[in-house]
């Protein structure tokens, strides 16, 4: 590890303390970096195109900056960005085809470390001071899929756990990490990892191709699959409710939770379902859209239109009180996910 990286770590630890103390103080907080108050749009970029990127948009929508990583660090981010996971002052950007994770300061976007040694990494969750990264290995073989465990202090892989075929999204709840496996019609299992023992503790059968997770107001885990929404009690890991999406809904993705409601994107429309509901709605909230990624926060929906994957994509912001589009930004190639910093 270089002196510079060490310095950055020390600096980032220092930032945690400053940020904690500034919450307590009534005075004006010191800015943590140029990207403190806004959202990041992760751009997957073209497969083997090496044009993954991150754009920043300030919360007041006044500042828009593309290629944040490369302009701060003067180097390319990598090939096919899959996801970002935040922990403390750091952001972990997972690059699926480069087989790397770029670790940056989430406020300044300065590079802290590059973690290598993955095989088609997808998503990362943090539990008990460790990172859990789902890896596909080669796509076709079903026996080389695994979860890599990262020591967050040394930025290195310390262990791996075999998983079911095609482990994808991961979520940490207490001392467990839930792993959705079997995307694209290849499975229906959640692997549950005990993060104290780092062993596979349980498998929960859910709907086909589990896509995304959310925790509701009671801390229950909801899993969106291609056929249903399943609610899981995370104390017992038992399914407490299964809500079928119905035959009319296809390619459901991007489960979001905001203000007591779930939001789901499917086939050019956005559906909204209250957490108390027992059936999936038939009518959509917003239709005629083309989202490659979608996030909802505080009454606003952020939809990403990747267009033809060869032109700059768009971020469309909708005010959910009226379901009307309030902002439009043309960003970069293949925007795929929104993160709130």
């Amino acid at each position, binding site marked *: 590890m270089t002196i510079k990286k060490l310095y950055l770590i020390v600096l980032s630890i220092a930032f945690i303390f400053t940020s904690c103390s500034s919450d307590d103080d009534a005075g004006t907080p010191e800015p943590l970096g140029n990207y403190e108050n806004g959202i990041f749009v992760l751009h997957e970029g*073209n497969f*083997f195109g*090496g044009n993954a990127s991150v754009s920043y948009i300030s919360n007041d929508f006044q500042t828009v900056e593309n290629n944040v990583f490369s302009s701060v660090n003067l180097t390319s981010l990598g090939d096919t960005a899959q996801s970002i996971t935040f922990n403390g002052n750091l952001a972990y950007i997972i690059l699926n*085809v480069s087989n790397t994770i770029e670790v940056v300061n989430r406020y300044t976007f300065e590079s802290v470390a590059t973690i290598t040694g993955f095989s088609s990494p997808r998503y990362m969750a943090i539990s008990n001071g460790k990172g859990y990264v789902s890896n596909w290995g*080669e796509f*076709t*073989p079903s026996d080389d899929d695994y979860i890599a465990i990262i020591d967050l202090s040394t930025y290195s892989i310390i262990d791996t756990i075999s998983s079911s075929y095609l482990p994808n999204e991961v979520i940490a709840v207490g001392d467990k990490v839930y792993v959705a496996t079997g995307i694209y019609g290849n499975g229906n299992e959640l692997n549950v990892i005990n993060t104290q023992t780092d062993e596979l503790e349980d498998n929960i059968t859910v709907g086909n191709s589990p896509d995304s997770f959310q925790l509701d107001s009671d801390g229950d885990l909801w899993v969106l699959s291609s056929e249903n929404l399943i609610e899981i009690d995370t104390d017992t890991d038992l399914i407490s409710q299964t809500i079928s999406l119905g035959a009319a809904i296809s390619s459901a993705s991007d489960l979001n939770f905001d203000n007591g409601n779930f939001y789901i994107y499917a086939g050019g429309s956005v559906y909204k379902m209250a957490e108390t509901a027992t059936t999936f709605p038939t009518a959509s909230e917003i239709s005629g859209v083309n*989202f490659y990624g979608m996030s909802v926060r505080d009454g606003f929906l952020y939809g990403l239109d990747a267009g033809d994957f*060869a032109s700059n994509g768009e971020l469309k912001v909708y005010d959910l009180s009226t379901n009307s589009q309030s902002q439009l930004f043309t960003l970069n190639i293949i925007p795929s996910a929104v993160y709130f910093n």
Partner: protein
Amino acid sequence: MKQITLFFLSLLFGSIVQAQTLIDSIQQLDEVVLSDVKLKRYANGYKLTILSDSILRKNNTSLTDVLRFNSNIYFKESGFGMVSSPSFRGTNASQTAVIWNGININSQLNGQVDFNIMSSSNYNTISIRSGGGSVQYGSGAIGGSIHLSNDFDFKKHFNHTVQLGYGSFNTKNINYKTSFGHGAWSGNFGVAYVDSENDYKFLGTDKRNENGAFNNLDINLNLGFVFSTKDVLKLHHQNFRSDREFSSTLLASSNSKYESEDYRSMVEWIHIEDNYTSSLKAVHLQEQFKYFESKFFDDFSKGQANTWMLKYHYKREFSKRLKLNLIADYSYITGEGNSFNDPKRNAFSATVVLSHRPTAKLQYNLNARKDVISDFESPLVFSGDVSYQFFKPYTLKFNASKNFRVPTFNDLYWNPGGNLDLKPEESYQLDLGHELRFKNMDFKLNTFYIETSDLIQWRPNAILGYWSPVNIASAKHYGFETELGVTQQIKKHTLFLTTSYSYTKTEDIEKQQPLFYVPVHKTNVSLSYTYKTFTAFYQHLYNGEVDIIGNTLDGFDVGNLGLSYTIKTKNKMRYITDFRINNIYNSYYENVALRPMPNRNFNIKLTLKF
């Protein structure tokens, strides 16, 4: 195949005696026997560039390099030895027809020919016909066509060539060729093998070209037999196998591997009368590939297509000045593989070509063609071309054509995504050419305008949730090309210069931006000097900046230098040594983004001719 061979063997033994009487008539037949006759005869208004045997021999083991350094064609090559897509005048690889001994061999699966899985050794001539040629060469001949030909020499001879080569990145090649002419028979046979670790260093980095090794084997057999004063039988067979890793990029790692195998076989019977000639061809083409996502695993996906074709060509000479050609062909094409459910296609086409030469200086051709293909409606295509020699060195050429490209098996049947509602791409174009031909100098200048519509592109489908091809885009291309060839001989010194330049502007009409991977400027120069049996040459390529998705890719210059020395012996034996330095300036360049091309590298070859 086996049966065809047996058939030939029986002909051979049954006809040796009779053959002796035919030798006189063979001289007259010779030009008819040359393959792909209509290329030269019925396209006077088109630009035709012929790469001679010496150019082919001078160049390396890569067909991509041969054409890149010696023609206006631009190649998008995904790293050295990887997928290589030709482009004429800003069109794409699916809009470039590749013609093997008169037959279109573009893939039935993706419509393209990857020039790094084509043999570079076993052809006598490579001809480049610029401009739309769908009437004569079918689907895909929009930007132009590249013709790979095996010719016959009936003069009595029996020659062998053995070549051994070794170069940087552990590149080895070995070739054997033999050619004979004896009485009514002529034939040639060639085997060529190339193997390279291709692990060149990426200049300015500590990386190498990982996972880029390749090898390929070409086997080529051609036989010609004159079995009466009026009949010629020809056989062409080619088998090309390639085993290639797909390299990593600067940012992406790869373990994938691609194996391909092509079989091409054709029997042709030509019958010649005083006022008409007829030719019947029976053709079988097979292409197959296996794609390994990882070379460390046995899993692969595969695809295969078979084409059986009968082609009949009738040429009637009403007079020395007026000729009519009628061509009809029928193809039955099948596909199989992991991504489709055994698609089949029946295709029939009828073509009429009228060729008229009212005066010694003026010639024009009028052509029309109609295809009937199962699954979709094909347009009536036509072309007209004219050439007029105003005065001795100067000829004006003009052609106009409508061309098309049919949807491929992948476009129609890929599961999921294949779209059965697709229609063929269409293109209209105009080309005006000037040719100056002096004793020691040739000059060509062509201006062109191409409009294409209903271009098939794969787009993400929001409702279906997967990618599907649609007839969505349209494009305009215009620009000009020049070619200059100069030969200067002073006593025993010969200087030979060829150079070409192209200026190509394109516009995607929907997006109002230039097409990706089309250099506005491309130029190459080749200069060779020969003294007695010593030859030195220098090749230079300037490839201008290109637009890529969301960015631009810098232009580059690259130069190669070569020396060749021939030792003649008292008998027939000749030894030729070739030494070659590629990329002599050690320039860093990318032909496709993030895929650096080789640094300076060396190659030595020893050739024995006897």
